[in-house]
């Protein structure tokens, strides 16, 4: 089959869709702006709920798309609709004409610097969820000072999520479970450490998430404090002092920590916005791409021939993303078939 299908973004959604399209007999083109495939999986260490190594997942997904056309370090210069097809010009000089475009541009993490009161980039021992995954992956990080082991570690949920003033009213969905996962991992590394999770709500919606939470409480003794951290400061030893309200107690609370981890939320990828304006794709009230229908048709854009999968339409977990990618591949297949019958009819 000669139909060109362009997948924008080589993360979990892009890779899964490409694999499904390959099995359907197409040769999709993956355009990836970075130098590697796998998206955020590449930076992550282990995935909830079964602690699967992210590398292993990414590798399995990459293995299966070897036959696709893959452009790494590539960005789209322009994209235009020409008749029934889309003409795409890439920064490496290549032009592609394609029948269907699958947007799998995913998400980016909220820039934790913006929550100035948490002092990310200012205090010596404040890091983000992603930094911690990097550290789990073996990256050196001066901020994680574990020379004498860590005695107290805190996790701040909802950093840049459910925060109108930070420009994101939505819940990022995965941070609660990620925080508990990381808290458990820290407790496994430092069994004597006191680990605190500062949360507003715990949204344990997914498979085995609640079990994770109970494990975190019972087997690991993680302290869950319902209250959003209001301010962070540093004491003379360079330790982090966190203040919050213990809302279940109605009292302010203060604790000194060796490490504070900010659970930066999920926001729409800034490159997606560029793409959206080039294609005149509408964005939804949450800042993510707007689907044709948020109930029945999350994977189609309002524009014919443009499809969505994964976190470009909102925060999602990996399995949700993978499921959407499969659905999108099938929708593209159906689109091309109906398109063909329509063109052959008119001939």
């Amino acid at each position, binding site marked *: 089959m000669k139909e060109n299908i362009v997948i924008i973004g080589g993360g979990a959604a892009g890779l899964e869709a490409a694999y499904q399209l390959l099995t359907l007999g197409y040769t999709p083109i993956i355009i990836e702006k970075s130098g590697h495939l796998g998206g955020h999986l590449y930076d992550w260490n282990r995935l909830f709920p079964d602690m699967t190594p992210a590398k292993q997942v990414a590798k399995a997904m990459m293995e299966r798309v070897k036959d696709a056309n893959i452009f790494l370090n590539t960005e789209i210069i322009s994209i235009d609709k020409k008749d029934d097809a889309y003409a795409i010009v890439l920064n490496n000089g290549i032009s592609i004409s394609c029948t269907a475009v699958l947007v799998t541009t995913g998400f980016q993490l909220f820039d934790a610097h913006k929550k100035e009161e948490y002092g990310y980039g200012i205090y010596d021992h404040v890091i983000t969820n992603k930094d911690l995954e990097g550290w789990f992956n073996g990256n050196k990080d001066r901020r994680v000072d574990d020379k004498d082991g860590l005695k107290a570690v805190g996790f701040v949920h909802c950093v840049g999520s459910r925060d109108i003033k930070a420009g994101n009213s939505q819940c990022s969905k995965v941070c609660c479970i990620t925080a508990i996962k990381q808290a458990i991992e820290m407790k496994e590394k430092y069994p004597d450490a006191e680990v605190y999770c500062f949360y507003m709500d715990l949204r344990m919606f997914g498979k085995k998430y609640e079990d994770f939470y109970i494990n975190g409480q019972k087997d690991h003794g993680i302290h869950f404090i319902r209250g959003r951290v209001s301010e962070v400061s540093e004491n003379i030893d360079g330790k982090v002092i966190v203040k919050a309200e213990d809302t279940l*107690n109605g009292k*302010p609370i203060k604790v000194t920590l060796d490490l504070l981890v900010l659970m930066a939320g999920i926001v729409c990828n800034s490159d997606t916005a560029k793409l959206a304006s080039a294609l005149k794709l509408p964005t939804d009230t949450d800042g993510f791409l707007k689907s044709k229908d948020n109930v029945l048709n999350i994977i189609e854009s309002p524009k014919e021939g443009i499809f969505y999968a994964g976190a470009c339409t909102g925060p999602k977990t990996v399995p949700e993303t993978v499921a959407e990618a499969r659905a999108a591949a099938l929708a593209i297949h159906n689109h091309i078939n109906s398109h063909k019958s329509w063109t052959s009819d008119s001939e």
Partner: protein
Amino acid sequence: MDFGFGIAPSSSINLDKVDLSLYRKVKEVEPDIERCMACGSCSATCPAAKFSGMSVRKVILGLQRGQQKEVRKMLSNCMLCGKCNMVCPRGINTRHLILSVCRYFDMKEEQK
């Protein structure tokens, strides 16, 4: 010199300094205490709540925050009826918890 006022005590709880000895003792004999998710079912069903503000949820939280005095006050009208035990969705043995708090509570420590 008498200024007619004094330095108001802080209402803030400093987790670095909080006295968790009672909490730890109770946790040893009733480890399920950790499983509380503060749903408040126990407080809502408690027949002693209207007399002494009894709430197992608050008792657990109070222990975790070193608020022994408040805990003691709440326990003063507990009738050990076991309703909290029945409603707890996390299966915490609240009666054993309450008895253990009463048992290991150190009056001398509180009077200090």
